[in-house]
């Protein structure tokens, strides 16, 4: 047997079970990533001490850091297991499920709250309904280029995981949904629902729950300018607040 990599995984068998740490040893291969290590355990579910175990449960989909499904805490930092390269990680490698979302099993968490918050802020562009609404207004190429980085958000939850104000004591929706409001409000068709989105982030759990710790922008794997988005929406919500009060 050649070189092996030590892997420690924080596991729990069901949402109510208390977590435990399991040690694995994975044969080293060049360009190995964390997902490939988990796939190896799937094929050969044996602990470092030789004892058989259930395969580690995890989620993955795109394997190219665009879907966010394999987000977990690797060596203490939230990131995607597919783009976490073993050569660049300190050993032994530790894997933990995200702490801000309910754990279903092992590394598999329920990030539904992220999706619910996108629904709350109408994180979409309205398109034709029962009849054709015709072509929408055009978007300037410059605006398209500006908006592209914001559109790279994959709702992975890293920003929420690192945010001190996103926790079980608070309703805060987290940075991702607020940044999506900025994206869709900048779209010529999306801006038709601009005020609805601003009202949504001025509600409970909205933008005013941000405390400017700015961890989100540090951990975002897509390098989205989340704190700029939040400050920009801060400005728009203040304008909306004053306008709402004066027109009431």
């Amino acid at each position, binding site marked *: 047997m050649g070189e092996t990599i030590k892997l420690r995984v924080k596991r729990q068998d069901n949402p109510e079970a208390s977590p435990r740490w399991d040690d694995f040893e994975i044969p080293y291969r060049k360009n190995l990533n964390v997902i490939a290590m988990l796939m190896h355990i799937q094929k050969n579910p044996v602990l470092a001490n030789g004892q058989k175990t259930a395969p580690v449960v995890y989620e993955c989909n795109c394997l190219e850091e665009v879907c966010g499904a394999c987000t977990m805490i690797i060596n203490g930092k939230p990131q995607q297991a597919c783009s976490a390269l073993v050569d660049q990680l300190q050993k032994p490698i530790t894997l933990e499920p995200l702490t801000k979302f309910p754990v279903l099993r092992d590394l598999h968490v329920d990030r539904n709250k992220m999706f619910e918050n996108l629904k709350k802020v109408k994180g979409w562009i309205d398109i034709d309904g029962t009849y054709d609404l015709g072509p929408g207004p055009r978007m300037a190429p410059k605006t398209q280029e500006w908006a592209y980085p914001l559109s790279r958000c994959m709702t992975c939850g890293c920003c929420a995981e690192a945010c001190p104000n996103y926790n079980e004591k608070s309703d805060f929706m987290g940075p991702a949904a607020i940044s999506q409001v900025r994206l869709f409000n900048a779209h010529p068709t999306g801006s038709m629902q601009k005020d609805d989105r601003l009202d949504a982030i001025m509600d409970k759990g909205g933008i005013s729950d941000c405390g400017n710790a*700015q961890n989100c922008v*540090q951990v975002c794997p897509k390098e989205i300018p989340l704190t700029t988005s939040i400050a920009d929406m801060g400005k728009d919500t203040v304008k909306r607040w004053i306008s709402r009060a004066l027109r009431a």
Partner: protein
Amino acid sequence: MGTNNHFAIRKVHSLLGIIPIGFFFLEHTITNSMAILGEDMWMAFVSFLHNLPFKIFLEVGLIFLPIAFHALYGLWIVYGAKNNTLRYSYFKNWMFYLQRITAIITLVFIIWHVWTLKTANLYYSQSYFQAMGEMLSNPLVFAAYLIGFLAAAFHFTNGIWSFLVAWGVTVGPKAQKVSFALCMGFFALLSAAGIGSLISFLQ
């Protein structure tokens, strides 16, 4: 929309930190820094404030009620955070944590500071200035004032930084960096005035 005042309450909390609390803190620091220029100068400023008409309404309306609201809602904000500076030891995260720590220190200090001075009622003693000096000659009291003042000054100046972000004045990272440097410069200035006046009372 309009079903709750969540946004409004948070914005009022934020605004009160500057107007009137921040302005009062500034006035308070400037007034007491007159001690650096001597007893007479300090006493002239203090007497002017002491003899303001409707003082009790000014104290309650511009100082007590705003601070009470800011503090009570602020405690709720402090409770709502799960600080994680050990795992995410980024500079701004530390500032976030420090803003909450100084909030608690400042609140405890203000309660003690106002309680002890109001009950002592030193204004009508032979020399208010010397009475303050005697009180501050106790090293424990001096340390409490030093820590209390620095905590308040940091909370105020770092609060200006986050106020500018929350109200969408400083939007980009560079603007926020510059405003932070300016706020910390202001913190240094206030600290010099505060520490200077504390030392001046000792003479």
